[in-house]
């Protein structure tokens, strides 16, 4: 029953190379870092790094939960709206004079509630999560707008609160980054080392098989919806606190950036597999592209807004990145067949 046994030296190298699911995003990181450091002066400095990481934090924090969700073959388009609804609630309550910690205690569970609603629509009404969360994306955004009556709300001024929830800096790094580190570590362990992670992958890979082996399919998916939404809300709170203000329109379009970071990192859109580290790297990749495109003097300094270029580069990355991931999957199939 053995064929294609990687005896040859070359095949062996390919084998180890292809086994790393994150190899595509690692290559992209190296190539783009080299390109940008050649074309932007001081690109490889700590100041630039911290900017990249704080951009990556925003995507990666939500991505940590969304990776689990996508591994279980569901998607959440409402994360950008939950990103707004939680800080809007917190800041509106704070403006009304509520204790800042109570504001946090009341607003973070709203993220959980949003997740429960998403999960309930998908699991009880049997709607595809793309449709269900498309609906709640509009619903949650609308609620955020109504709550803030369209205007900006300032973050609570309590210094301890500000420092902990993303307003502080340590070594030039936003404190939100440290939240991300902790949450990444937890989700990585959960996805790769626990029974729940194994069930998540099994549910995403073959739901009926998982069910027949006694896996509680609905419970797994529900928890992943809740975790994703909770982290989206937390991330919004950290970001709004770091900027000092919340507008109810914050986080629009964020869902697709999160999905982009996840799939570039090597987690397939179709579920069944996933890598927490890949999502971190995918988020950093987006951060690098963001800062790089902002910093380059495009077309000899013509007045073209860098955001226009950023979207274009991300678009190209998605297509090329997915093509490379597909190629790597073919390679894995060849060398791992036994």
């Amino acid at each position, binding site marked *: 029953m053995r064929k294609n046994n990687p005896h040859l030296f070359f095949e062996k190298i390919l084998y180890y190379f292809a086994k790393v699911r994150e190899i595509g995003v690692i290559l992209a990181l190296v190539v783009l870092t080299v390109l940008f450091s050649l074309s932007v002066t001081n690109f490889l400095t700590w100041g630039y790094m911290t900017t990249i990481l704080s951009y990556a934090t925003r995507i990666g924090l939500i991505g940590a939960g969304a990776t689990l969700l996508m591994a279980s073959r569901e998607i959440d388009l409402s994360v950008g709206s939950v990103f707004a609804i939680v800080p809007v609630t917190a800041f509106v309550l704070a403006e009304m004079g509520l204790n800042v910690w109570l504001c946090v205690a009341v607003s973070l569970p709203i993220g959980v509630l949003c997740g429960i609603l998403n999960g309930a629509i998908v699991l009880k009404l049997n709607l595809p999560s793309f449709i269900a969360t498309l609906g709640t994306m509009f619903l949650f955004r609308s609620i955020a707008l109504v709550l803030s009556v369209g205007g900006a709300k300032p973050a609570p001024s309590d210094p301890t609160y500000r420092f902990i929830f993303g307003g502080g800096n340590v070594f030039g790094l936003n404190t939100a980054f440290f939240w991300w580190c902790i949450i990444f570590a937890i989700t990585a362990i959960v996805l790769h080392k626990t029974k729940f992670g194994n069930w998540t*992958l099994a549910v995403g890979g073959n739901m*009926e*098989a998982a069910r*027949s082996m006694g*896996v509680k399919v609905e419970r797994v998916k529900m928890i992943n919806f809740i975790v994703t939404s909770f982290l989206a809300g937390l991330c919004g709170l950290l970001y709004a606190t770091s900027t000092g203000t919340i507008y109810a329109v914050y986080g629009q379009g964020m869902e697709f950036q999160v999905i982009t970071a996840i799939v570039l990192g090597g987690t397939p859109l179709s579920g069944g597999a996933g890598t927490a580290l890949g999502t971190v790297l995918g988020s950093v990749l987006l951060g690098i592209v963001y800062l790089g495109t902002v910093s380059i003097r495009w077309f000899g300094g013509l007045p073209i807004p860098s955001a226009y270029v950023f979207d274009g580069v991300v678009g190209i990355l998605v297509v090329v990145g997915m093509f490379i991931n597909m190629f790597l999957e073919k390679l894995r199939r060849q060398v791992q067949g*036994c």
Partner: protein
Amino acid sequence: MLEEPLVKMESICKFFGPVKALDKVDFYVGRSEIVGLVGDNGAGKSTLVKVLSGIYPPDEGRIYLEGRRVEFSSPSQARMLGIETIYQDLALVEDLPIYRNIFLGKEPLKRFGIFSILDERKMKEESEKVLKLLKINIRSVDVPVKYLSGGQRQSVAIARAVYYRAKLLLMDEPTTQLGAAEVESVLELIRNVKKEGRSIVIISHNLPMILSVCDRVTVLRKGKVVGNKYTKDLTIEEVTDMIIGRGKYAE
């Protein structure tokens, strides 16, 4: 029959509306016995196996497991009693490695205070052990199932059932999608499973395969048992006659 059979089904009837899919069927499987269940399309083979695997409750009749009367209304109840169905789609998760598939739903854990993580080492060692016991030749239990051939997948599914101490394995057309060499290795595996003291029921249209691997063949026609013979006394022609009701088996 000298000893108590592992499973005995007595006058099982199953109706689908006005259609009598099974008509007072008696069927038994001995210990360490491989029984072939054959018959034309619509003869009731799959229905009989589905009754035995807990998918269809019988409308009439009794089932005995090791001499005790049993009743089950779901595959999971049948599985708890030691009757495992190897499905054609095999109930494996493509992206998960072999060892994670074998332990899916029954993962061994290592505890750290209130937290617990998967005991990867135990899962891998036990998986290697059961593959070795059944002489299944796969390079590594780390390989995701999607990189395995059809026969290898079949083997993993069988190994999983054996590991969980299934007493009786039900297999519906286990070799249809396999190449010739793979069929041989699956049949070898089935014989090894028998050596481990387990029993197997195989449904198939492939009569040469049935005659080569089974100890006994039970033939169904139009929901009734029309033959039950040891394979050493049988030829393909005689089985075919029983299946279609020809020659000395004509109605």
